[in-house]
């Protein structure tokens, strides 16, 4: 199938989807209060923009997102590098990891509130926890998987210390694997944003909860689509960055 046809089919599929969605409440198959037809969404979006609520909620959510991502990914890469380089560290932390890893990020909500209060830092914490494990395991695995022959090249040229090994070989060689983990984390963190804000930290999640309690489902849909659009933007930007960073690959 050529590219043009694929695009055409994708557009047609989307049109059919929107058509069904539009038809269902209009034909009375579903109560419009439960599922607002897509034609009402632009107006709702306009109102949210006019009120200034949209910009405020999105900026606030973005700040949680970026901070949580940076903290979680930073810690994940740092500890992942250490665990990948040191068998001792890996062994010492093996059971702690096994204990903590299965705990879902949202299970930390009670502690997040107790430790940080209903504050942005609580949302950041929830997001960071979710991101941390993904990036940690991706980094550790990537470092473990580095070709030992390349490490030997560094040794042969006199770079024998752990720091030089890390900087000259392990980090660049592990970059593709770390980036795969980061890309997964990018999506995971975005999902955690809504969850982390639902308990009251200002942002998109909180605004969605407010709207749904007033049965303003069109506003809920506005934010759902906002999140999808923003995620698409981040992912596209990340893939572009990834392509540039890995331009050395065939």
């Amino acid at each position, binding site marked *: 199938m050529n590219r043009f046809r694929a695009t055409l089919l994708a557009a047609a599929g989307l049109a059919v989807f929107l058509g069904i969605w539009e038809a269902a409440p209009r034909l009375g198959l579903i109560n419009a209060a439960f599922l607002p037809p897509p034609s009402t969404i632009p107006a709702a979006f306009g109102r949210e923009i006019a009120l200034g609520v949209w910009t405020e909620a999105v900026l606030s959510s973005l700040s949680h997102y970026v901070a949580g991502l940076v903290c979680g990914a930073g810690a994940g890469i740092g500890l992942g590098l250490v665990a990948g380089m040191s068998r001792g560290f890996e062994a010492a932390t093996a059971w702690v990891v096994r204990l903590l890893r299965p705990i879902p990020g949202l299970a930390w909500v009670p502690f997040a509130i107790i430790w940080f209060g209903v504050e942005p830092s609580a949302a950041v914490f929830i997001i960071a926890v979710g991101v941390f494990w993904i990036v940690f395991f991706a980094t550790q695995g990537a470092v473990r998987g580095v070709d030992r022959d390349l490490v030997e*090249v560094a040794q042969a040229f006199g770079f024998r210390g752990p720091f030089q090994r890390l900087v000259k070989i392990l980090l*660049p060689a592990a970059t593709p694997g770390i980036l795969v983990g980061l890309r997964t984390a990018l999506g995971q963190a975005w999902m955690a944003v809504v969850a982390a804000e639902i308990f009251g930290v200002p942002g998109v999640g909180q605004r969605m909860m407010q709207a749904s309690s007033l049965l303003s489902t069109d506003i809920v849909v506005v934010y759902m689509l906002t999140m999808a659009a923003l995620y698409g933007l981040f992912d596209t930007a990340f893939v572009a960055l990834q392509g540039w960073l890995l331009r050395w690959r065939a």
Partner: protein
Amino acid sequence: MLDTIIDIRGLSLVYGTGERRNVVLDALDLDVVRGEVLVIVGESGVGKSTLLRVLMDLSRPSGGTVEIHARPDCRTPMAMVFQDARLLPWRRVIDNVAFGLEGSGLSRAQRRARAHAMLGLVGLADFGDRWPHQLSGGQRQRVAIARALAVEPDVLLMDEPFSALDSFTREGLQDELQRITQETGKTVLFVTHDIDEAVTIADRVVVIAGPPGRIAAEVRIDLPRPRIRRDAALQEIARQLRAELSRRSADL
């Protein structure tokens, strides 16, 4: 008066213990003379590569001594060219060649200038901006040679550097290596299992038989360079070495 640059005495290397004890090298004596191209020939598994690894301090010997009489100002007495080029795929060719110069106190511009000169020496002056994956196998191996030469080692160690290449490329690089050693006067310790390759490039060939690896024969080759592969004298030396190797193998 011969100027010995590497002096190996009673070198042995043993892996494992008990039933799994594996003697790779046994009481090996070897001198490498400054400025010569010494080729070590032997079958797989006789410890040829292990010997180079010991010299590079990548493997620890079980016994014996290795003395290296490097120039006093030499930062890296030895540099190695591996069988597979082992370029760092995330660095451009020029930065691969400059790799060993990092931390030498040279500025980035100086390192690049030196790397560029080395690329010129191996005939790849215009390839500095390429990525390793854009090179052919022979070109990659040239870059590996440039990378090793860039650190100005006293001795260039080469571990079957051409064995993974097709015969056409291999012969081209053998000629190239002869030219480079003549131009630079570099001491080369070259390991191979290819006798024709050995007699083409060597000033002296040492046959290691085993396992465990021991020196079985030694031949000096004083034929002029560049050498012609079909030269009768060269082929006669190759024939003798082949006979020596098969006799040694039959003894085992």
